[in-house]
């Protein structure tokens, strides 16, 4: 059986997804070999699901068979790895078991067949968009009595997470750097447009104030500047931990973070059906090779041209032949594809 370390010892981020962690460990600790309550952990890309999965591996290291997938699964060999006396199977990135093409569900069907007859407890992690798709098309949720959806984080959690990284104090500046603050934008109005889930921030310029080097001089208390900064980051990141972390890293200049310099990301996507479809596939698989994309796209889609356009618009990135959604474009891409109902 696993050791009994506390929450903080298991996870690299002691605050992130504590409730979800408690739910999973409660199920695992209650597990006896009869009728395992298989667990599905559902998360958007970059939402911090890896923290949970790594924590599980750490906590139940002597009980776990670990099956991580890194690309589309094309053979049933993975099932042969589920052997031995260990009673828990942890599977990362299970969205690679299904491909959106004719005959593309063979692996997920084989997996579900195996899971249906196994006495082991399966803890699986899925991309939320693939999960929704498989839920609609294959009723996959019926195989997993415990479904844990990784929630969006709030600005207080983000603040704790980010500040816990540093021993030195971070200085938060509400306004623009010196010389730039005649029209500094230390306050913003949050606007919600009809038919759009996303909130937009309109910066309100002020014509007064000194050089804006500190919160005090711009009329904003430094502690308020801190809260404004994290509120802004979490709003831009749409509550996604990984995206927020990236925005934080990109905005921090040494030990100083200027609220006005946290980049607002414009969201104006207009794609044709083929571009939208490929974007959906990339979003649903998180990281997909051009070979797999070509198989899914079929002859109807000019893959190279479409990928070029998606990359050129700053929506996807390419790394060693694999394509993924750019973290900073995630919220925008999600909103767009949901609106046109390519994902649901």
């Amino acid at each position: 059986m696993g050791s009994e370390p506390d929450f903080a010892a298991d996870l690299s981020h002691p605050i992130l997804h504590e409730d979800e962690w408690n739910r999973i460990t409660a199920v695992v600790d209650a597990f006896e070999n009869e009728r395992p309550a298989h667990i599905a952990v559902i998360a958007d890309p970059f939402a911090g699901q890896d923290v949970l999965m790594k924590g599980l591996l750490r906590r139940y290291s002597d009980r776990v068979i670990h099956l991580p997938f890194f690309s589309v699964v094309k053979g049933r060999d993975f099932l042969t790895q589920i052997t031995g006396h260990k009673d828990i199977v942890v599977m990362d990135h299970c969205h690679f078991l299904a491909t959106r093409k004719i005959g593309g569900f063979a692996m997920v069907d084989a997996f579900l067949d195996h899971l249906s007859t196994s006495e082991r407890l399966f803890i699986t992690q899925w991309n939320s968009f693939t999960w929704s798709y498989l839920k609609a098309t294959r009723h996959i949720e019926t195989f997993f009595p415990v479904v844990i959806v990784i929630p969006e984080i709030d600005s207080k959690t983000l603040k704790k997470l980010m500040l816990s990284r540093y021993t030195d104090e971070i200085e938060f500046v509400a306004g623009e750097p010196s010389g730039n603050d005649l029209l500094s934008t230390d306050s913003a109005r949050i606007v919600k447009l009809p038919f759009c889930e996303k909130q937009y921030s309109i910066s309100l310029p002020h014509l007064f104030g000194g050089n804006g080097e500190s919160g005090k001089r711009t009329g904003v208390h430094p502690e308020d500047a801190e809260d404004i900064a994290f509120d802004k980051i979490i709003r831009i990141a749409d509550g996604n931990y990984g995206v927020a972390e990236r925005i934080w890293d990109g905005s921090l200049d040494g030990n100083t973070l200027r609220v006005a310099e946290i980049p607002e990301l414009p969201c104006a996507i207009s794609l044709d059906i083929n571009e939208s479809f490929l974007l959906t596939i990339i979003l649903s698989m998180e990281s997909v090779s051009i070979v797999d994309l070509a198989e899914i796209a079929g002859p109807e889609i000019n893959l190279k041209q479409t990928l070029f356009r998606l990359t050129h618009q700053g929506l996807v990135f390419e790394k060693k032949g694999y394509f993924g959604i750019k973290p900073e474009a995630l919220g925008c891409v999600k909103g767009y594809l949901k609106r046109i109902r390519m994902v649901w």
Partner: protein
Amino acid sequence: MAVLNETLSTDASQIASAIPEMGEIITIVLILVGAYLIVKIADFLLRRISESAGRYRITVTMVIPLLKIIVYVSAVYFIILTIFDPGLPELALFSGLFGAAIGFGLKDIFADIIGGIVIAFERPYQIGDKIEVSGTYGEVTDIGLRATRVVTPDDSVVSIPNYAIFQEATASQNAGKTEMMVTIDIFIDPRSDADLAMDILKDALITSKYVYISSTRPYTVLMQDFPFYRRIRARGYVNDLRSEFEFRSEVTRRAWGELIRQGISPPPPGHVVPNKMEE
């Protein structure tokens, strides 16, 4: 005699007061132009908004015919106010003239306008819907005061008088929703593996880039046996009804590509396969 003269002079003055002067004519023209511009601008803006409203696209366009009626009825009201003092004799005179106009040949137009009002309020169909009425099938692009314009699959614009709503059965394929059920049939040789064909058609349907599936928008795949062929029928929802034919084409093309690859063939030549869906 004096009484008669007085009555005649009163009638004459009423008729004279009903004839608009130059200033009133200009006002009337301005009201009409203003109403037309308001309708056109609102129509343009609402259509633009509807395109960015995703699944609420048709809900937004629903406002257009309603707005047209409100604007034009208001315009008529202001024109009447401009021409007449809204006294009883003037209203009686106007009603008489209006009744006569309807009797002399405007009754069809009047019926169409009433039909337009009924369509705007009762909403048997909306702008953006796919409808079938009077033997015409297509997408509703405009609901005017007099007629509903429908674009057929071969891109013909058909104007259906609004009065048809009182006489003809109207079928709306999507009933105001953006998605729409599409039926796709393929016919295979009865000696082929029908189970495999059903699996392939199902996969082609659910992996389509146009498909929309939810608990309330499920898909089905059915098989029916006929003397010389088997029909595999898939039903699923297209995520935007404007892609109805692309959806059907894409699923059919991809399904046949795989069917042929798996050795499943169409019915033997010489047997007539219905080109119209039965049932």
